[in-house]
């Protein structure tokens, strides 16, 4: 469609060659010109500030940035703990929490999303109504999700209190107040919010699978389980990649969920590295330590995402 219109427009000016070449050169350059501002902004405000943060992490900046390099002191302070340290340091807690939260959040969201999508794909009645119901939590901000779940999980207000009033007095669920379990409540709230969206992604993927392949498999005598295990799920591989990237970045930046849901948890036991970074940089005036933690976060993400992207994208030309 686009090509057709372009050709028609070009024809009347065919005689005026220099103008046409000017115009075509302009047209060649246009995408670059349009992209240039956003490219420049990205270079400065993303990559420029990454470098600035790295630089700050090697200084002794406190309240204000200072520019005298003082070596890797900030990193040494972060990594002074060992696995045997008792009580665990805040940085250790943050990292372990990131591991627990990241793994469970991504894994449960993918599993639940896929499961729901497969169920919804069974040509059931009322799908048009069910889909938005699952999808809707994604429209809420993390703050709203956090506050709602905070009330729901609070033993004195929400679930436990209600069940006690209904007569089930032995029911006990105080994870949100428990330093060892509070991080799992963050997983619960996070999964509730994101799994519907992941379901929608998988559903789109399922709808894109050629029905002929399914029929062929059924004729060959494949059971439903085999059908999904051997054919459908492998075909959904690109969706897994997109879903993984969406979930991974949500997991890493879920600072606000922790704050709204637990305000850091008992004794800071629900901190994620992002909470650690904010606390140290802005509340404790330890800008160098905060920057160092931000750099480590970036390195970790890079170490996970880059090989994954590489392995997935390399196979494309095949």
């Amino acid at each position: 469609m686009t090509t057709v219109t372009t050709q028609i427009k070009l024809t009347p000016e065919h005689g005026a060659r220099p103008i046409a070449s000017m115009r075509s050169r302009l047209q060649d350059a246009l995408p670059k010109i349009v992209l240039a501002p956003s490219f420049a902004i990205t270079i400065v405000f993303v990559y420029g500030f990454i470098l600035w943060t790295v630089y700050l992490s090697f200084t002794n900046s406190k309240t204000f940035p200072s520019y005298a390099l003082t070596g890797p002191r900030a990193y040494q302070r972060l990594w002074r703990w060992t696995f045997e340290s008792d009580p665990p340091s805040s940085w250790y807690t943050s990292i372990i929490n990131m591991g627990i939260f990241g793994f469970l959040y991504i894994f449960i969201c993918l599993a639940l999303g896929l499961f729901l999508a497969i169920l919804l794909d069974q040509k059931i009645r009322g799908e048009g109504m069910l889909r938005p119901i699952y999808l809707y939590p994604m429209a809420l901000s993390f703050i709203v999700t956090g506050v709602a779940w905070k009330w729901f999980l609070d033993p004195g207000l929400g679930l436990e209190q209600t069940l006690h009033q209904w007569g089930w007095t032995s029911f006990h669920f105080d994870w949100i107040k428990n330093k060892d379990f509070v991080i799992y409540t963050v997983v619960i709230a996070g999964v509730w919010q994101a799994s519907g969206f992941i379901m929608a992604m998988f559903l789109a993927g399922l709808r894109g699978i050629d029905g002929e392949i399914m029929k062929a498999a059924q004729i060959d005598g494949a059971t439903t389980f085999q059908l999904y295990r051997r054919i459908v799920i492998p075909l959904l591989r690109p969706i897994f990649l997109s879903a993984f990237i969406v979930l991974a970045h949500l997991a890493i930046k879920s600072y606000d969920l922790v704050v709204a849901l637990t305000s850091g948890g008992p004794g800071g036991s629900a901190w994620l590295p992002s909470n650690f970074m904010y606390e140290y940089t802005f509340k404790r005036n330890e800008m160098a330590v905060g920057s160092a933690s931000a750099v480590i976060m970036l390195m970790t993400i890079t170490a996970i995402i880059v090989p994954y992207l590489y392995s997935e994208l390399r196979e494309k030309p095949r």
Partner: protein
Amino acid sequence: MLRKLLIGTALGSGLAFAAHAQDVKEVEMLHWWTSGGEAAALNVLKEDLAKQGFAWKDVPVAGGGGDAAMTALKAMVAAGNYPTASQMLGYTVLDYAAAGVMGDLTETAVKEGWDKSVPTALQKFSVYDGKWVAAPVNVHSVNWLWINKAVMDKIGGTEPKTFDDFIALLDKAKAAGVIPLALGGQNWQEATMFDSVVLSTGGPEFYKKAFNDLDEEQLKSDTMKKSFDNLAKLVTYVDPNFSGRDWNLATAMVIKGDALVQVMGDWAKGEFNAAKKTPGTDFLCYRFPGTDGSVVYNSDMFGMFDVPEDRKAAQVALATATLSKSFQSAFNVVKGSVPARTDVPDTDFDACGKKGIADLKAANEGGTLFGSLAQGYGAPPAVANAYKDVVSKFVHGQIKTSDEAVTQLVNAIEDAK
């Protein structure tokens, strides 16, 4: 091009120079007093200045106990766009003063006699290098008990004078089936309570050495261990659901009579006032047992920035109005705190306010007025936050014994210095 620039600069500075002739009658004020009572209190100042013909340019940055406001201030100062004044806390004032961006109000201070009327301990934060850089607005003190009188009468309790009395009182409440101690399990609330516990356990001299001078000997002493043990005792009297609770919800538990007592700074009185309760008949305010005669304080200050000449007159007017006796009285009656100068008449204050004013005066004269470590007046923010971490981890059981707590405290403070 260069010439054009030069001409432009010359013109610009010429204009700025011309403007000097006429003062800007405007006060630009950054603060985080946005909630009802606080905004009403600040309005008093706004009206005072309006009477003198100064316009008020409000820069409110709500939220997070001033964290957001401080981030905004950092950005404004970094851009060279200084406000006339900003609400600030303790060591922040000194940080900015050390960075050389604060103004000098010494002339006004001498004229108004601030150095005589403002408590000496506060002057540590409002005077930098011999120059007045900030005007204190109020003094809060944190070593208070807030008690529901109806519950107190029901269990037949009397004012606890020692820590053991206090434990006995809490036991009575427990036996009567009310929650003895209302506590919000957030690190600053736990640490605020611990300030009082340390003062009560070790006495004024110990508190000063440990929490204002950060003397390592005292920090790892047996008295400090005993303080942690006492804190552990208190924690056994809270309800199981305390973790993460906001301070005003804990106050509400006392107001409603669900709980007997809360250990909190005098901003809690604002909640009682808002619920239309009167001191003496509905609620009681006592000093934390064993701390009578000492005051652990924090204070809101208006930091005065190094503004251009034409804005200095407005700044002086603001500072003078802030520390005027009439404003100090009117503001602090609304806010629940006590005046930042000791010569303000206490006629308009309620019973708790009167006690607060008398205590502050006595503590100032007796040298028992100490900065609260939990509230950032005992040591710089890095140390104060390290302290809050340790106390909170102890309360929530990540740190299991008082021996370990003391070791952790020493290490954390050493680390943060």
